[in-house]
């Protein structure tokens, strides 16, 4: 396969690292060579989280500026902030559910409008989709499945030599039994949304 670099951008506590790991394990289970990278520590305290999955034989565990083929944004502003890592012509799949920063919550800074965010991303690539991850996750009854919605959309988009079915199998195999049903549903909802746009 053509090697692919996938950049994850999210907020500490959101489960970005779990999503990173799930994608990496799905790839490995399907016989694709994978290296993934993440940074622990300060990120847990509500800071920015960046992580990486590199498929198809890379050795490096990180993605530098302009190298990502795909940016998976788990939060709108963090998607915008991570754009310098995207290569020209790269693709963006992002959640449309903002998580305000502390400074925004306190009224010190303003959260940019979705129009501004879309415009910013649009300047870098035409290939971007916003996914209503939180809205769809609520349908499963468990908002924590928002990340799985995004991954479901990603698998359905056909950017990888992996199918939604591979992802669903991975959810069944890798997640704790009590989480499987809601996450399967979340992945399917993300995939359905992707098929509809």
């Amino acid at each position, binding site marked *: 396969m053509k090697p692919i670099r996938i950049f994850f951008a999210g907020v500490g506590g959101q489960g970005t690292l779990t999503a990173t790991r799930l994608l990496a394990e799905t790839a*490995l289970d399907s016989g694709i060579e994978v290296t993934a990278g993440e940074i622990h*520590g300060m990120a847990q305290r509500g800071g920015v989280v960046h992580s990486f999955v590199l498929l198809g034989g890379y050795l490096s565990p990180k993605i530098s500026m*302009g190298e990502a083929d795909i940016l998976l944004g788990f939060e709108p*502003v963090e998607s915008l*902030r991570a*754009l310098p890592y995207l290569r020209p012509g790269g693709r963006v799949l992002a959640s449309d559910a903002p998580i305000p920063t502390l400074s925004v919550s306190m009224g010190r800074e303003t959260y940019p409008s979705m129009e501004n965010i879309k415009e910013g991303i649009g300047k870098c690539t035409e290939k971007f989709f916003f996914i209503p991850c939180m809205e769809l996750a609520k349908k499963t009854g468990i908002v924590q499945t928002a990340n799985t919605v995004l991954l479901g959309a990603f698998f359905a988009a056909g950017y990888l030599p992996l199918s939604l079915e591979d992802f669903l199998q991975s959810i069944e195999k890798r997640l704790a039994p009590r989480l499987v049903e809601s996450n399967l549903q979340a992945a399917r909802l993300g995939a359905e949304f992707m098929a509809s746009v």
Partner: protein
Amino acid sequence: MNLLDSGPGTRSLLLGNEAIVRGALEAGVGFISCYPGTPSSEVPDTFFRLSKHGDYHFEYSINEKVAMEVAGGASLGGVPSLVTMKHVGVNVAADPMVTLAHIGTPGGLVILCADDPGCHSSQNEQDSRYYVRLAGLPCFEPSTAQECKDMTREAFELSARWQQPVMLRTTTRVNHMRGPVVFGPLSPARTKGAFAREPQRFVSVPAVGRVRHRALLANLETIREEVNRSAWNKIYGQGKTGVIASGVSRAYLGDVLKLQPELMVKVLELGLCYPFPDDLVYNFLENLDRVLILEELEPIMENEVRRICQQKGLAIQVRGKDKDLPLWDEYSTSMVSTALHRLLNLDAPVETGCSVDQSNLPGRPPNLCAGCPHRSVYVQVRKIFGDNAVYSSDIGCYTLGMLPPLKTADFLLCMGSSVSTGCGMSKAIDDPVVAFIGDSTFFHSGITGLINAVYNKHDLFLIILDNRTTAMTGHQPHPGVDQAVFEGKPGRIEIEPLVRASGVNEVRRIKALNQKALSMAIEELKKISGVRVLIAEDPCPLFARKVLGQKRTKKARVAVSDQAALECVRTLACPAFYLEGEEVHINPVHCAGCMVCVQLCPSLKPETAGS
């Protein structure tokens, strides 16, 4: 995937740190000690998690020096031992480490040292390969998860055979990478050894030290011969242009050469990097015109290569640290690509990342969690002292108090430093000094500073922020933690009697979330001079929820959104608050129910959680 059960041939996606654990288990490690520190923490945490099922002895030691000494002792007793820490921890452990290298470690001792180029979670980005040379430690530098496992296993074998401690030097990217690892066979844990008495070797009085230094140097020369032939050091490619790389730079180089095959170079990858393999490197250099050295941080291999060129009279161009490859931060594939292009006199590819104006994006620095007892203490301290005190801080979540509006950290050196640095500061200035230290950090090395403060009659107001866990690095236990939650270790060491036994007479102990008690105790201690200690106790809310299983019983709500409520938002900076225009709200999902805001502001009221 289970690191203890899975048989040889299993292929699993492991974190670099998990792979190190598997490597040690395959080597039959019998004794593991550590002090947790990012990016090394998942190694001891994994051993801890598996310890009910493993045969090895595992301990969280109280600091890195102690961890090095207990592991050193086990190794002297013939047991293969592992000690783990982050790079700054090696500073703490350097004293026993250097002497252990002199006297040797018969059972085998592997020292994991996790460096942090880029300071992802550290106060500096020192290069521990200087310690390798200072102490005389053969050193492995893995670059993949598979190598993390295989090099760890081999480090144990070599350490036992050479009777020298071996360092496994990693960097953050390697510790926290995930990659496929093929397992080898497990060995039974060797938890018992035998001590062969040999005072002329193991009692390092000056007469012994003198002899042992020479023995160490001779041993390192023998080891150097093996390193020259080691399969971990490999040559590939061809041409008159060479590249020598170690650590994660090998991964970056590998990817660049794979993606840009037009870059024709001859490569020497060093996995077993010290003693420096002079003969191997000389043979590699002999037919080259120029060579580039790829190593993050210090020009250590570069200087070795320059030495060899000088000694052997080689007139080749040696390149290393320059504007493309600086002494700070991490390397990357793009930096390596640029450096290779320049080396080959080719035009370097232009940076092609997407540029967006980020100047107006709201920042997202890490901050104290909702319900964190540190916030409660900081708010009250700031209320009473404001900018009229100087705040000595320490290492832990509570360092985040440096940010506005709390602003309760003015200087910080290292673990345990707040006590003693605060003492020095209070001699130098007239303003009062208030020092903060966490419970784990107090046990780590704050207590020695406290005894010194009493003995030398310093003037210091110390606040021990006792949240009953090691919060920052992932809730590891320490002597002050109630061990009943972690099977088999009942009881805990109370901080107050320790403080009193250190000679401190003015001690107050209150609940950290109780604003009134805090206020009274701080006002009282403010009036007293000399060493006085406030112990502010309340558990880390994440620890209380995840480890102790405590449920939240109440939460705060906004009764009236008025000026007072707005002021409370600005004073506390609690992430559970949010504003809609000027209207104050509390996110019921985020509110941890600490009730600090309710105590500070009559416009906020408690209600039962779930209502």
